């Protein structure tokens, strides 16, 4: 990604402490966001005086325009919020920041995400029982849905369908039906990721070893998803600083390039009664990312065989398998056998994946921590370091409008 000689790169990453749901009570979610942004700036060897942009993605409670004052930015020249939702938008927010930097609209943009689920309602839940309207509207008007959530809630809540595990369990059930994907294959994702987390002192589940037997014994939530198929609920924040390669030349740890990125949703998303349920069968029983994948590979100039390490969004184990297929690491329907072959395991797998522990075992920060880990890998700083890693794929969530990017060391 480069225009007029201005190329974007990541020069700083920052994190707060990560803790289980409700584990951070002495600091607000907003304060954690500020803390993470400042940590990313410090990591880059810069100061807030060097920063002129802030970016996030949909469903963020913490406004950039409010935060700019607390950060003491000299002037806010760029502030954006990707429409892509929590889960799908982390890579898009980074890509938008990179575009802003490359266009010259801004010099240094920090992307942030903070999630304190103990302080707010659990993420991704429906808005409860919709209240009945009482009395006539104050001004006569036509009432019509203006968002996916608003449109869908009436068609889901009456049936007790109000949470992502239920929605995406049906995607996996369909994938199992078509391709023979198994519970044990999903279990490989959970167990492998937990082993990676054991080496990561930041990981929420770093001290909780998991065997396949442990996985299979975990309680069933929404078939075929068990508890250990579902990502964590936790408190924490992280941030990523993007600037030009020129500015990065004297950065503390050297630049990591954004080789290419893409975002969007296939036609058919939002056509049905919830999220992806109205899509054609081939797209429903997939990550829904084939369009994003094709555009990202084309723009980045590399392909799946060039990737040394991957951070694949893991809200649910099974959807990692589907993303591996959509991004071309294995054939259609082969995500399960690919994972079961040991491909995802550090250090000897063909594609060490989620080397920080992912959302399943490090922390659920809507996948911005996956970008952080990608940067660490290319700096040689990961706790599961892939020797000589020069390329890292980072994806955002499967099953929703999504985004992805390739980081490179060059």
């Amino acid at each position, binding site marked *: 990604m480069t225009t007029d000689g201005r190329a974007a790169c990541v020069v700083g990453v920052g994190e707060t402490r990560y803790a289980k749901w409700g584990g951070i009570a002495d600091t607000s979610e907003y304060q954690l966001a500020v803390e993470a942004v400042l940590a990313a700036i410090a990591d880059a060897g810069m100061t807030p005086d060097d920063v002129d942009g802030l970016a996030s993605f949909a469903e963020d409670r913490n406004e950039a325009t409010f935060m700019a004052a607390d950060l003491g930015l000299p002037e806010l020249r760029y502030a954006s919020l990707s429409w892509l939702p929590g889960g799908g938008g982390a890579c898009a927010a980074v890509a938008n920041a990179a575009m802003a930097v490359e266009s010259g609209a801004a010099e240094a943009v920090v992307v942030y995400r903070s999630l304190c689920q103990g302080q707010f309602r659990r993420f991704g839940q429906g808005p409860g*029982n*919709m*209240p*009945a*309207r009482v009395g006539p509207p104050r001004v006569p008007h*036509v*009432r*019509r*849905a203006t968002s996916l959530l608003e*449109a*869908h*809630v*009436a*068609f*889901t*809540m*009456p*049936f*007790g*369908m*109000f949470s992502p595990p*239920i929605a995406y*369990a*049906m*995607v996996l*059930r*369909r994938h199992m*039906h078509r391709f023979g994907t198994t519970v044990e294959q999903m279990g490989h994702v959970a167990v492998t990721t937990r082993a990676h987390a054991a080496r990561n002192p930041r990981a929420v589940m770093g001290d909780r070893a998991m065997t396949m037997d442990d996985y299979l014994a975990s*309680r*069933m*939530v*929404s*078939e*075929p*998803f068990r*508890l250990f198929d579902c990502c964590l609920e936790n408190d924490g924040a992280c941030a990523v600083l993007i600037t030009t390669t020129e500015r990065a030349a004297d950065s503390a740890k050297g630049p990591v390039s954004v080789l290419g990125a893409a975002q969007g949703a296939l036609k058919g998303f939002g*056509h*049905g*009664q*919830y999220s992806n*349920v*109205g899509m054609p069968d081939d797209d429903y029983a997939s990550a829904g990312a084939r369009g994003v994948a094709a555009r990202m590979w084309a723009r980045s100039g590399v392909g799946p065989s060039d990737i040394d390490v991957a951070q694949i969004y893991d809200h649910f184990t099974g959807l990692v398998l589907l993303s591996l297929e959509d991004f071309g690491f294995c054939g259609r329907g082969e995500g399960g056998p690919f994972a079961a072959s040991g491909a995802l395991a550090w250090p000897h797998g063909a594609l060490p994946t989620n080397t920080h522990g992912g959302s399943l075992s490090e922390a659920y920060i809507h996948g911005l921590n996956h970008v952080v880990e990608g940067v660490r890998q290319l700096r040689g700083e990961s706790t599961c370091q892939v020797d000589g890693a020069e390329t890292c794929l980072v994806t955002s969530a499967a099953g929703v409008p999504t985004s992805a990017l390739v980081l490179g060391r060059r």
Partner: protein
Amino acid sequence: MTDRTPNATDERPPKPRPAPTPDADSAPYWSAAREGRLVVQRCTNCGARQLYPRDRCLVCRGPVEWVEATGRGTVYSFTVIRQNYSRPFRDWIPYVVALVDLEEGPRVMTNIVGCEPDDVRIGMPVRAQFEAVSDEAGIALFAPVSGADSGADSGAD
């Protein structure tokens, strides 16, 4: 798993099934279901059928009308919910959330009733039955088709 259910000592009366709030696009769907009829949108230009209701055809952007559906379909995918701490759903456990492909094309979200959760299969023929959930809305649940009986049923079993 039973010991994890937090309502062991909850003596409050059961909470009713949540009712949808109809809006300009969806009100005809809910009122039809209240009367025991399943309806879908049909494009008067290209004939495409759709649900979630919109104010135009998602294929050709043409105008849409509501037409009656047979109420017959097949299970496209499903999940059995084994854990849910929210009322009223925790009282339903285990229950089946499913997507049903209607004969007319659109895919609807529903609960499968009338059989054990473990007996639900992808491809299973099902038919609609209706439940009133408010003065202005009903919902379509689906039950397995038994034997030669394949007609839609507007009665509550």
